């Protein structure tokens, strides 16, 4: 398989069969907290796509051009997390400048991306699986899009749920959301035969 084709495969696998949220269950806290409304979920989803794509690229370069040559791979956790934190700050500044509405809607949740484990997870999986630059980029973007699709789908379901379902009292809120996430994960597993990545 050529490299381009492999990267293409990784991209789709990251969105569907190996969805970082629904198969690895990473990034759950903001997934549960911000999936109440479609508009906010879409905003946070897009922020995650942007941050994940950019941080995967930067972290790939950092890993292969600094950490590996100087033999300080063991510092990858702290190095990756600093890059992510700085990037989220940047995104926050930009969003605040560009759109009052988006800033108001995301508000206090935006700094949550810093501690969103899905973003660190994507960077770590990428180097563990020894992706090339192109595949790493595809994986980062794919994982971000996969996370965004999952949270947007969940927001859609929760909006409908609020309108017409009688959820048993003991299951309201996080309870029913986790049950739905489980069923969504089963549905995504249906794609598993199509592509697999390691």
């Amino acid at each position, binding site marked *: 398989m050529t490299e381009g084709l492999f990267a293409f495969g990784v991209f789709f696998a990251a969105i569907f069969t190996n969805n970082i949220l629904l198969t690895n269950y990473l990034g759950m806290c903001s997934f549960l907290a911000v999936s109440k409304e479609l508009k906010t979920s879409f905003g946070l989803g897009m922020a995650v796509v942007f941050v994940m794509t950019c941080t995967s690229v930067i972290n790939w370069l950092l890993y292969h051009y600094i950490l590996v040559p100087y033999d300080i791979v063991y*510092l990858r956790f702290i*190095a990756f997390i600093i890059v992510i934190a*700085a990037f989220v700050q940047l995104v926050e500044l930009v969003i*605040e400048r560009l759109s*009052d509405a988006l*800033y108001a809607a995301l*508000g206090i949740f935006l700094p949550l991306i810093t501690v969103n484990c899905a973003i660190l997870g994507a960077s770590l999986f990428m180097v563990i699986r020894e992706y090339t630059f192109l595949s790493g980029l595809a994986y980062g973007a794919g994982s971000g899009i996969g996370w965004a699709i999952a949270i947007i789908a969940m927001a859609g379901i929760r909006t409908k749920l609020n309108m017409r379902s009688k959820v048993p009292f003991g299951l309201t809120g996080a309870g029913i959301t986790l049950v739905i996430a489980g069923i969504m994960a089963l549905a995504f597993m249906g794609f598993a035969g199509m592509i697999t990545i390691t």
Partner: protein
Amino acid sequence: MLSSFLIAVIAMCGLATFLAVLMVIADLTVGNYGEVKITINEETEMTVEGGKPLLSTLMGEKLFIPSACGGRGSCGFCKVKVVSDIGDYVATELPWITEEEKKENIRLSCQIKVKKDLAIQIPEELFNVKEYRTRVERLRDLTYDIKEVTLKLIDPPEIKIRAGQYIQFQTPEYELSSESVYRAYSCSSVPSRKDTVELEIRLVPNGICTTYIFQYMKEGDEVTINGPYGEFYLRDTDAEIVFIAGGSGMAPIKSILLDMAEKGIDRKATYFFGARTTRDLFLVDEMRELEKRLPRFSFVPALSAPTEEDKWTGESGLITEVLDKHLKEGNKVEAYLCGSPGMIDASVGVLTKKGLPEQLIFYDKFA
């Protein structure tokens, strides 16, 4: 071995420095909103540097919106009406804003940032709030954790306070805080002494402002305050009064009582003061003195956990139990409360249970 350590340290420092420089550049470009204009009450205009919260921006222009928490979004006092469009409410504002206030676009000024030209409306009297330079005249220990601070005004030399109002104390930059912060304290002095402001301050463990006052501030130091603020003052009626306070909540009540004594306001009044042990009681002699000056006033201190050594013969029990015992059902009194949120909520509960309507309950919550 040493070189691998060095490489690791240099690499991490390099990375951190690079990102820090990036952040500084972003702050100066993307985060730089230039100069913006704020129009107040359609007449006053001021040009300010954009990008900071409205509350601190106005404070920089010597216009003081009341705030007890110093801009952390935890007191809900600093509301202003924003006339121009400033976008949706942010999540941190919503707990303090009612549905009616939403229709008027009343915003929490510490949570909204000044990013473009703004038009706001504030009560006229806030223009009377001023900043005062003062000198610490006296520091006196009232209990092991409450200090009386007497401030002598330098410039302007006189302040006009209503008994019960509060001021904001500016803590300068010092070892424990890299920026100056504001905290609100009620005045305990009698308003007729226009050149002096007296505060009663309880040490908050690790509190930025109280640690400064207790451990760093000395007699003769210069400090800055601003004010006065607050709606906590004696209403002009003939109704019987119930005062309820605990700890440093003594301050505004003492001011009101002194003011009553001076003006000869003769109303039936009972002052319930809650403390744990005699160690937490203070100014009892002053209160007994006031009982002589105000014939229908009585001071009822209550200890919640008196020890053997206290040899306490007065009221004991939680302040709510003492209230429950003394208050008559359906008695139309005015209640003035000052103390911790827990004490106030519990006391308001007892008062409403006794049939006192909420309009007759006035309080100052220390958040």
